[in-house]
């Protein structure tokens, strides 16, 4: 069951202020409408994980960890490894998050990140098969939202990708039909760098990488995930309001450009942590 959320409390005066500023072509933190906050990625943040990355997007902080284990494949894909993405909106990250099992917001966040990695075929699941129909590698990505200051979609997608990009997993050998862990480790090959870009929709304005105040003032978002060859692999509108075709196409165009910039900046080919 999905219920109308109670929404985050935002002072009317602040909401009006954000709208007024936007009408004058400005944002509260001085950014341009199509400007990201400062992005910092720290890889190898968690030693016990096979891959990990802490992403700071302004003061939004998201930690992603990758664990790789061996398990059974799905019956319809007997020769493919299994990819899973789970997101936790930790209660310590925002006054609006409650402890408990994953809710619709964490599920839709995880499914969006999952779609980006899966549909782009960023990792080759066929390479992760040990014995067809019996044993495959399970790549489990857990997204931990530590501090929610807006734009969790982009920060989470980035954290998951950066964590995968530095993943080194133990190699298993099949001995008498059983998987046995060896001392050897292998770098997970990343074939694509799918980049998510999100705009908040504020009346007739599009705000890239919304801050928490902007999120609370608008409540409606449009996200795209682009590949290097400019193809799209995921689209998602979130929130209570609607979007016109004109604004959708504007967001599409800006997202296409911005994802290219981000990819170049964050994942320059041949010069990346685990892939170098």
């Amino acid at each position, binding site marked *: 069951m999905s*219920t109308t959320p109670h929404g985050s409390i935002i002072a009317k005066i602040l909401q009006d202020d954000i709208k007024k500023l936007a009408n004058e072509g400005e944002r509260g933190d001085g950014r341009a409408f199509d400007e990201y906050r400062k992005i910092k990625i720290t890889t190898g943040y968690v030693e016990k994980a096979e891959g990990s990355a802490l992403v700071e997007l302004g003061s939004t902080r998201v930690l992603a960890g990758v664990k790789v284990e061996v398990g059974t494949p799905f019956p319809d894909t007997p020769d493919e490894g299994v990819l899973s993405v789970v997101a936790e909106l930790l209660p310590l990250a925002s006054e609006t998050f409650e402890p408990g099992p994953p809710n619709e917001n964490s599920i839709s966040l995880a499914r969006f990140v999952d779609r980006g990695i899966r549909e*782009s075929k960023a990792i080759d699941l066929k390479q992760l098969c040990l014995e067809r129909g019996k044993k495959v590698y399970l790549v489990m990505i857990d997204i931990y939202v530590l501090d929610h200051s807006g734009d969790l979609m982009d920060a989470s997608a980035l954290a998951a990708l950066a964590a995968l990009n530095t993943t080194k997993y133990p190699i298993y050998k099949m001995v008498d039909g059983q998987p046995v862990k060896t001392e050897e480790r292998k770098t997970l090959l990343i074939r694509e760098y799918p980049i998510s870009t999100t705009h908040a929709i504020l009346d007739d304005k599009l705000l890239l990488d919304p801050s928490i105040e902007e999120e609370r003032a608008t409540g409606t978002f449009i996200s795209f995930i682009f590949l290097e060859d400019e193809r*799209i*692999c995921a689209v998602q509108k*979130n929130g209570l309001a609607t979007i016109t075709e004109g604004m959708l196409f504007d967001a*599409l165009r800006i997202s296409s450009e911005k994802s290219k910039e981000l990819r170049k900046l964050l994942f320059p080919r041949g010069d990346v942590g685990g892939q170098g």
Partner: protein
Amino acid sequence: MLSKLIDENGIRTDGRKLDELRPVKMEVGILKNANGSAYFEQGKCKILAAVYGPHEAHPRHLALPDRAIIRCRYHMAPFSVTERKNPAPSRREIELSKVIREALEPLVMCELFPRTMIDIFIEILTADGGTRCAGLTAASLALADAGIPLRGLVSACAAGKVDGKIVLDLNDKEDKEGDADVPVAFIPQMNVFSLLQMDGLMTAEDYKSALSIALQGCRKLYEMQIEALKKKYLETKVEENNQ
């Protein structure tokens, strides 16, 4: 690449042209207890939607002082798919319940019913691709049937890319084996989109084509929704007048 979902004449596995909707059947007001209900068939998809409310919000702490809240459940019957589906809500159903609710919220004049709750239940009896859109179209009819003041109707329809071609209203096979799926919900009266999703791989140009063909589908469905509502309410009125 050998084409298998579309033949050399541009005909799809179920005999449709690229921009053709599956056969559609809509009926309004078919459940006795619900305040509003609708039955919707699209190809092999069979869907029931019901609306209860506005009624007192319970648990009460969910109520909002300035508007009605909407509660929405998208649910697939265990027998609706080839392999029995566990009746417990899956992650997919939880996400779809959310995006469907968000697609219906801009429609309903919630501000007229403060502190109340409107329940929307969508049951997929048979699934064959495109159920989130079909469920939305049905739910929108059920809301209208419940007499809840609306700003318009939501008409929803998917387009996608199959064998390198942009096609309207994917069936299950096309959804699973095709390149991309673009579900879209449109509110004709407001000229806006209320649901936009996409998964698969396509260029921005393909995406725009898919969106435009989906829009045509939505407009056709909208005409049929209006007919379905007229059929129930105009006929009822004529009967009343004859008595």
